[in-house]
């Protein structure tokens, strides 16, 4: 069963007089538990595609279905609720809250609106801190961490709400290749252990190789699928 689906999604941006067509009719269906890479050169539309999947932006036309529900026409508030409850985000630049420490950054999505008790929150946060191997960094601020450590915090933060899908837009682009590989390996091991769906974009062939399935995009179109089971 697909957790998220795009049907003939188009997205164009107006830049002055010209119209940039970032997506030109993309249809994809992603199943629960997938570990999927979206590959393509810079400017091909990877980020735009992920933004559609993550309710960060809305398509100019076409349909986005998440967990069986059409999200077209939803209000900002409802889209925000989708992002909060169903989707986890990992960013290229890590995007941690600079004034919060590791523990607090991971706890953040749970504090925004969840009704969990302090104990329940703590259990979740500690579980994912351990899962990404940062138990000895709990009290550190983001600026006291290396890039790889920051991205681990981001991964824990994306997972802590137990989302349906985790979206990662070029999560390794700001890391050296060794660290990048380890980050993708971490994501993959989590995917295997608890069946969380991961969708990440990359233009790095080494990283692509870690994916169970790859969708290739070019000029705003899906140009092919490859990479069955590794």
């Amino acid at each position: 069963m697909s957790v998220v689906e795009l049907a003939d999604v188009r997205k164009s941006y107006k830049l002055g007089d010209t119209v940039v067509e970032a997506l030109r009719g993309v249809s994809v269906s992603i199943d629960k538990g997938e570990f999927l890479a979206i590959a393509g050169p810079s400017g091909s539309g990877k980020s735009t595609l992920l933004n559609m999947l993550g309710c960060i932006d809305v398509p100019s036309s076409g349909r986005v279905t998440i967990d069986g529900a059409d999200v077209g026409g939803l209000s900002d508030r409802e889209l925000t609720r989708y992002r909060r409850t169903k989707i986890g985000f990992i960013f290229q630049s890590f995007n941690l809250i600079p004034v919060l420490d590791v523990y607090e950054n991971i706890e953040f999505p749970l504090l925004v609106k969840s009704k969990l008790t302090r104990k329940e929150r703590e259990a979740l946060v500690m579980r994912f801190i351990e899962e990404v191997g940062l138990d000895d960094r709990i009290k550190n601020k983001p600026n006291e961490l290396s890039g790889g450590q920051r991205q681990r915090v981001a991964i824990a933060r994306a997972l802590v709400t137990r989302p349906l899908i985790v979206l990662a837009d070029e999560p390794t682009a700001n890391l050296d290749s060794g660290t990048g590989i380890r980050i993708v390996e971490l994501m993959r091991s989590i995917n295997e252990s608890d069946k969380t769906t991961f969708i990440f974009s990359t233009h790095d062939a080494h990283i692509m190789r870690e994916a169970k399935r790859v969708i290739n995009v070019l000029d705003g179109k899906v140009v092919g699928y490859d990479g069955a089971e590794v």
Partner: protein
Amino acid sequence: MLVLRLALRTIMRRKGRMVLIGSLVAFGTFLSVFGTAFSSSAGEASRASIIDNFTGDLIVYSARSKELPSPFAFNTPLPNIRNADEVGRFLSASPEVLTWASFAQNYGLVQVERDGRKVDLPFIFYAVEPGPYRKVFPNVDVKDGSFFGIREDGALSPPGTGVTGDGSTGDRARGVMISAFQNGQYLRNYGVQLRVGERVTLLGITEGGANALPSRVTGIFEPKHYKSVFNYINFVDAATYSELYNYTGVTALPEALNAGLAAAQGGEDAIFGLADAGIGELDLGSLRSEALSGFTMIAVKLKDHATVDRFIAAIEATDGLEVKAARWDAASGFYASISKALQAFIWLATGLVFLVVALIFANTLIINVVERTAEIGTMRAIGSDKSFVRNMFLAETLILNLAAALVGMVAAGVVMAALSGGVPLPETISQFLIGGGRLPLRANAWHFVQTLVAVAVVSVLATLYPVRVATSITPLKAMSER
């Protein structure tokens, strides 16, 4: 709470900028607390000073007057109060009244002989009942002689201390009191100076010509307050004044004549009728002449100032008195307006400072928002609502500004405590504002509460636009470069 934690830490993270903004807010707060305390103290002191020096809580004057009473309008004298005795009885019988004094303003000439030459010295004066006047207005500092034999507390001087030249004392000390400043002016302009006890001739100008009355100088004084006006004002006792201006009337007229006079208002026939009816039968021997006061104003002091409006309504509504009454502020002319203008100015200045601080504050906040675009976008992307973003900025603003306001208020408290002996003012300003001297500063909790509310309201207003900018940041901005 997450929002508070974020706000607090964000403030700490941008310490330099926040301290700068905080100092501005603290300064504004200081200004507001001090300014409101100052202006309300000035208002209060001005009121007390005006009441104690010119007007009392109110001035009673003739109902026939078209002008408001003004203690400084010497060139437009008010009509006399006709029923002065009845008004006096009313005041004596009113439990709200603490004390009262009748007076009038006028001008005349003091004629003095020097080396066989007569010199006419112009002077303006208050005609007063010395005892009551002194009790109501403790503004006279006697330098030489006596205030018509009346002590500072309004009582008679012990025998022998009143100076009248002919050896009489106390209540019989009649004549003129000359301001020391005025006397100096005489020396400068006429080469003549008046001396206590010396014989003078007072010249009063009436419709029928000039009246002359032999009199004396009973004392030289300096005003304690409002020197800018009282330096020019002298005093004449009521009895002398009445004689000088022929304020005499006739008592014991037969009732029939009065009735006839009243009827005569009707027309000419009635007037001729009068001759037959009454006048011919008048027994001139039974008539007595009576000195009338010539008073135009009665300054009334109340036990409780708050009752002034009620008291005015009561006296104006009483039949037969034929008087109106003006509150102290209406009767003091521009003196009451000065402190009101000052208060308005302080309000305006404080408002302006608040406006400027609010603009600088809003501007800084917008810079913060722009700098934190990616951070806010990230929060939105991972599930924070717009309201979360708004609350975060509101919390930041309120934490910073209330802390700064606290600092400003403590500073204001310290400064005001240090000025508990009164605020020194330039003498010319002080003269007009409160009659001279230091301004006693009276702060109360209200000045602080008022400012705190203003800071809170202005803070929230100043965040409106920056918050709008912040909440319009889309989750897409999480991806923007920092």
